[in-house]
Structures are given as C-alpha cells and as structure tokens.
C-alpha cells in the first residue's frame, strides 16, 4: 500500500494543469521508474491471465489461500531484501525456519508449555542465529555466502537433533491460530464480514491521509508535486483495488491473522528502509562500501544488525510456518531461502547491492506466489512449475539489465 507513495516521493512529476502537463505526468509516472511500474503491470497481467484461465482463481477462498500459503516467504523476503541491498546473501533462512519451528514445537508440544513460551523461545533462537551470522560476517569478515552456507548445514543439523529426526504435532490451541485464525465477526454482517471491511477501510484512509500530508509537506518545502487530478486518481485506484480485495476476504472467512502481521511488517520495514538512518546506511554500504566507511557509517555494526534482523524475521517465518503446518518437521522450510532470494531479484533488487525496495520484493514474492497457485489450480505438473518459475526469475532480471542498457543509451 505504500508503494504508490514512494513512487511519488522519488519521481517528482512536473506540475501542470494543461493537457501537456497531464500527459507528461502520466508518461513520466509510467516510464520514469519503469522497473517499479513495470513490475506492477507484470503482476496485474499475471493475475489477469490466471483469472481468465481459471474461474476459481479470484474466488474469495483462493485469495485467502494465497495469503496463508505464501506469507512466510514474504516475511523472509523482507529480511532478505535488506541483506541483499547491503551486498550480502543469506542461504540459511530455510534451516532457521525449521530450527525455530522445532524449538517452539519441542517446548509447546513435547514439554506442554504455553504457546507464548514457544513463540518467545523461537524469537530468541532466531536472534541468536542472526547474531552468530553477524559475528562471522561483520567481526571476522567472512563473506556472507560462506557463513550462511555453513549456517544452512549447521542449523538443519541442529533441527534434526532438536526433533530427534521425527515430526512433532499437533500444536492446536492459540499457537495453531497464529497462522490459521481469522479476525472476524466483531461487527457481524450477512455473509460479508464487516470487521474486515472496516480494517481495510481504515488502512486506505490512513494511506490517503499520509499521501496528502506528504504532498503538503513537499509543497511547503517548495518541491514539485504531481498534478492534483493525478494524485486523486492514484489514490482512488489504490483504494478501489484494496477494497475489492477486502471484500473478497470478507466474503470468505474474514481477515487472516497472518495478513495483519504481514501488513504491519511491510509498513514498518518500508519506513525503516526508506526513512530511517539505519536504512540509509544499509543502502550506502551496498552502494559503495569504501565511501560509506569514509562517511562515518559504522559498517560492522550495521552489518551485524542486518543479520540479527534476518535471524529474527526467519524465526517469525518459522513460527508462522510451524503454526500453519500445525507441527514441526525436520525437513521443514527446505529451499525457502531460494524463494525469498528470487522474490527480491524479481522485485528489482540488484545483485551487486545498493538497490531494491521492500515493496518491490513483496510484489516479486507475490508474482511467484500467484504463479505457483495459478499453475496448481490449472493442474500443471510440479516439474513444469519449477521450469516456469525459473524462467520468470531469469526474464525479470534480464528485463532489468535490458532496461538499464536502454537508459544508458537513451536519446
């Protein structure tokens, strides 16, 4: 929901009331940041294609399903984006998802502890794992690729040890509700959950209000703002899409808990990456390490916390995943790291670091999610699903490279 705001923050569109100004506003909004708008268009196109190919694709229950099924990848992608922007990589997140889930399951299922003990223990383990990676990367100076490749093995092994190589289930109770529960019924409704609509309505209102405030602030600082009609049109479109989605959820089972969690995380991390000093430092390190160092950025410290953050987000994903599976398996989360990494790159992050956005990674993740889900509905074999997803990753990055070349030689 904040993607649109950022686009305007980044690309000042010349104001103008005449037709030419309006056209220019439109053209520059579309082409000015082609990668950003390109990915939204690609996402829209993919959704459109699947909705035409299968009538159940946009059904309330399937949309709910997509959210539940891929939320943990999106959570991982948030942390991974920061890691990638800083010029690192984390290959261990799948194993960390498994380990944190296993720790929670051991405490809650085997030891009979309350659900929150499991949650806190998982978070603590995630923190420690992150600190471990951070220590080796930031303090000792070993490339993250090696450190986390070792982590992938180490933490997978520890998962097997924790679980004695067997699965534990079921969680049941509150822990189960984390990923499978819904917020609904508070305000009643006839087949449509009013509560869900109210929450989304409030979110849209907040979005419109912040967009308005930032527009006013820019005007106060005498910066260019886009034409008023364009500003309004954009908010109306965003609101319409969001409310349509809300209506679909509301006609199914209401507002999934994980969607609330994911929404909160996206908002927080968008702010952290775009507005905080820490976020700036991450981009500075990824863009030019030497220059960052000579500008007084505490590179070691920032790198350390980047990995701690990744560890904690991995544990959040671990909690969500184990809750959704209603148990812990030794092989849980296998190759999640690849999905999370793919989401970032499809979403426009640069392999060399310094470039990428949380919103981009989220759309990138959603493209992968929608593709998987759509192909499953259409009964495409898993083998072909893999091939198609691989091609999507390749083409998305190729598009990026092509675009950059074109911009270089632009006339």
């Amino acid at each position: 929901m904040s993607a649109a705001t950022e686009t305007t923050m980044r690309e000042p569109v010349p104001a103008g009331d005449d037709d030419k100004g309006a056209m220019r506003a439109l053209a520059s909004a579309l082409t000015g940041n082609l990668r950003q708008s390109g990915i939204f268009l690609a996402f829209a196109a993919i959704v459109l294609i699947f909705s035409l190919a299968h009538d159940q694709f946009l059904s309330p229950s399937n949309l709910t399903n997509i959210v539940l099924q891929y939320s943990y990848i999106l959570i991982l992608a948030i942390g991974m984006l920061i890691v990638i922007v800083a010029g690192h990589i984390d290959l261990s997140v799948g194993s960390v998802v498994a380990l944190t889930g296993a720790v929670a399951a051991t405490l809650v299922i085997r030891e009979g502890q309350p659900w929150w003990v499991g949650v806190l223990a998982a978070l603590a383990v995630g923190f420690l794992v992150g600190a471990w990676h951070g220590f080796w990367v930031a303090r000792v100076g070993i490339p993250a690729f090696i450190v986390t490749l070792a982590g992938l093995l180490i933490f997978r092994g520890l998962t097997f040890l924790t679980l004695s190589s067997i699965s534990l289930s079921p969680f049941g109770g509150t822990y189960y509700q984390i990923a499978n529960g819904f917020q609904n019924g508070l305000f009643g409704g006839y087949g449509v959950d009013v509560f869900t609509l109210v929450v989304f309505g409030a979110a849209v209102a907040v979005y419109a209000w912040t967009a308005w405030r930032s527009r006013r602030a820019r005007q106060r600082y005498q910066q260019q703002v886009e034409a008023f009609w364009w500003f309004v049109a954009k908010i109306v479109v965003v609101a319409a899409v969001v409310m349509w989605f809300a209506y679909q959820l509301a006609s199914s089972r209401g507002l999934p808990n994980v969607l609330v969690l994911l929404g909160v995380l996206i908002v927080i991390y968008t702010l952290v990456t775009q507005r905080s000093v820490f976020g700036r430092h991450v981009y500075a390190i990824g863009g030019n390490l030497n220059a960052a160092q000579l500008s007084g950025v505490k590179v070691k410290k920032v790198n350390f916390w980047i990995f701690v953050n990744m560890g904690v987000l991995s544990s959040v994903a671990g909690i969500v995943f184990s809750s959704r599976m209603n148990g812990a398996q030794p092989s849980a989360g296998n190759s999640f790291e690849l999905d999370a990494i793919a989401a970032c790159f499809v979403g426009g992050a640069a392999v060399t670091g310094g470039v990428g956005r949380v919103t981009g990674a989220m759309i990138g993740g959603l493209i992968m999610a929608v593709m998987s889900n759509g192909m499953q509905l259409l009964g495409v074999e898993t083998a072909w699903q893999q091939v198609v997803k691989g091609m999507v990753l390749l083409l998305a990055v190729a598009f990026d490279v092509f675009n950059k070349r074109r911009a270089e030689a632009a006339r």
Partner: protein
Amino acid sequence: MTDNILEMRSITKTFPGVKALQDVSLTVRRGEIHAICGENGAGKSTLMKVLSGVYPHGTYDGEIHFDGAEVQFGSINDSEARGIVIIHQELALVPFLSAAENIFLGNERRGAGGLIDWNRTNAEAAELMARVGLNEKPVTPVSQLGVGKQQLIEIAKALSKEVKLLILDEPTAALNDNDSEHLLELLRQLKAQGITSIMISHKLNEIAEIADRTTIIRDGRTIETLDMSQPEATQDRMIRSMVGRDLEHRYPERTPNVGEELLRVEGWTVHHPTQPGRVVVDNASFTVNAGEVVGIAGLMGAGRTELAMSLFGRSYGRNITGQVFKHGQEIQVHTVSDAIDHGIAYATEDRKRYGLNLIEDIRKNITAASLGKVSRRGWVNSNEEMKVAEEYRGNLNIKAPTVMALAGKLSGGNQQKVVLSKWIFTDADVLILDEPTRGIDVGAKYEIYTIINRMVAAGKAVVVISSELPELLGICDRVYTLAFGRITGVLPVADATQERLMELMTMEKETAR
C-alpha cells in the same frame, strides 16, 4: 584546401531531462593536436563518447565524417576498427594483469591452436612500451605502476590498435608535473609520426603549450575554435569563452585573519597496511590554526594522502603512533565517526572509489556523512534533506536537473562538487581537501576557492593537499612540504616560491630535517 580527418556536424545528444549537446560541430585536421575545453558538464566527455561509439549511432542526431566518409558506429569496436581510440577520464586497466596482458586485452596475440603466444605478446608489448617511453618489464602487474605510467600503458594499448585518431579525456588530471610533461612530449612525438590527437583538459597552460587548435564548448554548444598560433588565443580569451564572462583573478582576494591553534599533530608515524616495516608517514608534526588555509605540497607517493587518511579516523595504514590535539586538548580519533564527531572532515582525491555512492542521488550523497543533521531519533526528514541538498546545489553550482539525479550520471567536475558539499555540510572545524580541484574547470575552481575562503572567514581551518603549486601559492597562508613521508619544511606563503617548494619536496632522506 585543408585536410580534415574528422568532421562532426550538428551533433545533438539528449539524456532524460538533460540536453548534453546541442548542435555541436567539431572539425579536426589531420595530424594536429586538437584541444577541447569547457566548464564541467559542458558536454566534452559526451561529445567524445558520441564520436567513439560509446553512444551508438541512432542515439544522437547529426553526422560524423571520418577519413573522408560518413561513419555510423554501433559500438566502440566499430570505431576502433577505423582507428579511433579513446582513453577515458577514468582509466580502464585491469589491476592484477600484467602490462602486456592489459595492452593486448581483447586483442590477444595468438599462436598455434589459438592459444596466447606469450613470447610474441611480451616482445611486442616491450616494443610498444619503449615507444611510449616506459622501461618497465612487460610482465609487471599494472597495480604496481603509478597513475602516470598506467596512463602510458593506456596509450601503448591504443598504439597496438593502429590508431589514427587518439582521444584523451583529461589525461593529465591525475598526473604530477613531471608525468604530465612526459605525456605531452609523447603526444608531440606521436604527432610527428602522423597520429592525430584530441585532448580534453582543464589545464589551460598545458593546452597553450601543446595544442594546435582549441575548440571551446559551453553548455552543450560550440563557442569557437581558436588557432593557438594566433596572438588572440590567450588564456584569458579561453576563459572568457568557457565561462561566458571575464574572470579577473584566478584566486579570490582574502585578508588573512589567523587565530589560535586549532589542530596540532605530533610525531605522527604510519606504517604501510600490508608491507610490514615500511614507514609511509615518518614522525610528522604540524599545526593548523583557526582561520588559516594550510597547504601540503609533495610529489606523488610522498605520503600526503596517507597522512590525511590516517589522521581521519585511521582509515589508512597500521601501527599508527602519535598524538592529535584539538584546541590544545589531546583527542582520540580511532574511527571515522570519531573524526567527524571531533569536527575533522576529509574529502578524498578519488571520488569514484572513496567519495560517492554512484547509484544514489545527489541528495543522499550530500547528507551521507551527517545524516544526524537532517534526522530526529533515527528518522530522516526527507523534506529537510531535500532543502539542504538544493541549497548546496545552488551554492556550489552543481549542474544537474534536480538533486534527485544519480551521482553516477554527473560529469566529473560536478561529482567533485557533490563530494565537497558532503563534507562542507558536516560543518567540520578542520576540513582536509585532497586535490579538491582535480578535473575542475577554471570557473568552478574559483567557486571552490571562494568556498574555502568563506569557511576560514567563519573561523574554521582548511588543509589543502594539491599537486598544483600555483594553486597552493594562490590560496594558502602556509605551506608544508612532504618528501618520502617526512615533513621537510614549512613556509609562509609570502616566502614561498615554486622553486623553493620544489626543492623541499625533493629533499632526499639523508638531508631531510
């Protein structure tokens, strides 16, 4: 009838939001040395990139005629095939490959079975290197050669391609006087061998010395082409055409108002980071007073940058010993952020590697070293930041459509101004500027000197490291000389002459101190 090797006719080149070249024409005669000069961002590099196919045919308007025929280059390979070789503003050598390997990179000398014939490679490389006056071994890795010699390797590489037209974009910007002299001499020799050269430079005396004709570009348009043998082709005339007005003095007036001691360094010794036992800065002591511009003169390799960077939060070297006092109190400066906190700033000589995040915009580069000043409790106020950046863009006259333009897309000189803005914005008490006017045009130099004056007038101190002695003499109050890592002397500017400084800068180890 004069024989023109090159005619570029009404070239227009537009980048999104910038008209870099507008209806530019350039005529180069066969066998001449043709200089191009103009302010930063005037479009000099862009024009040469159009010529050499970096920007392929179709991405610009206009015609290029070379050697009697119209040419439409699709890539840099096409232009090289016709004998046009460009040496870019930033050198493009592979540091860990040998001189010979670099010379024949992409153009390898092959023997039986398509494998590289090393004997031939090295023998031919040695020949080419002798032609440019290098007597290093062809197997030496280029990272072990100084910038001056690397520049010569680039030229040797060009010669290996049977060059007819050699383009040099600011070849002497990073060279000291000796190396520059050598390079100019080489260009004269090449001219005698029938090779035409185009040289971009901001150093007017060097243009006056070597060029047959000079084309001046301003704001993406050709202003005039001067025949350097004519009496009206003076440096003042060139400056007037470049900046569009008269520039009465090269250095702004200033009445020195030197105050109390601000920074004192005692017994500063720095060892080489990777070669143990090698002393790079040897027991250096100096003082800097409030309101004073202090110069540091020294030949390349004398340890000027190393001295500055080691002081700046120990960002260079190891086993650093010595004391730093500010306002008479000893301070501990172990990291860059310590240095910034203590009001010490250092603007690097190598803006691309150490100064800028090229993939971020101007705004974020300017605030990178003092984000705290535009943020509250860890959150950046982007509007405030924007205001600050716009202010600096105006004050330092940075040529860019907005402060949202990426630093990597700016012309070299404007990038330098962004680096300076970054450090001025930290509001440091002691500002160390390492080659602050490298690659900067005369007008912008004047602006930078004015900024330096403004800072010292506000009671701050500025330390200027420069290879250009006239510049040090023009703007400093005192000049320290550095040779082989030792401070060999200090002269108040009134007593200093270029000769006297040179003498101190070349003082041998035994006689030093």
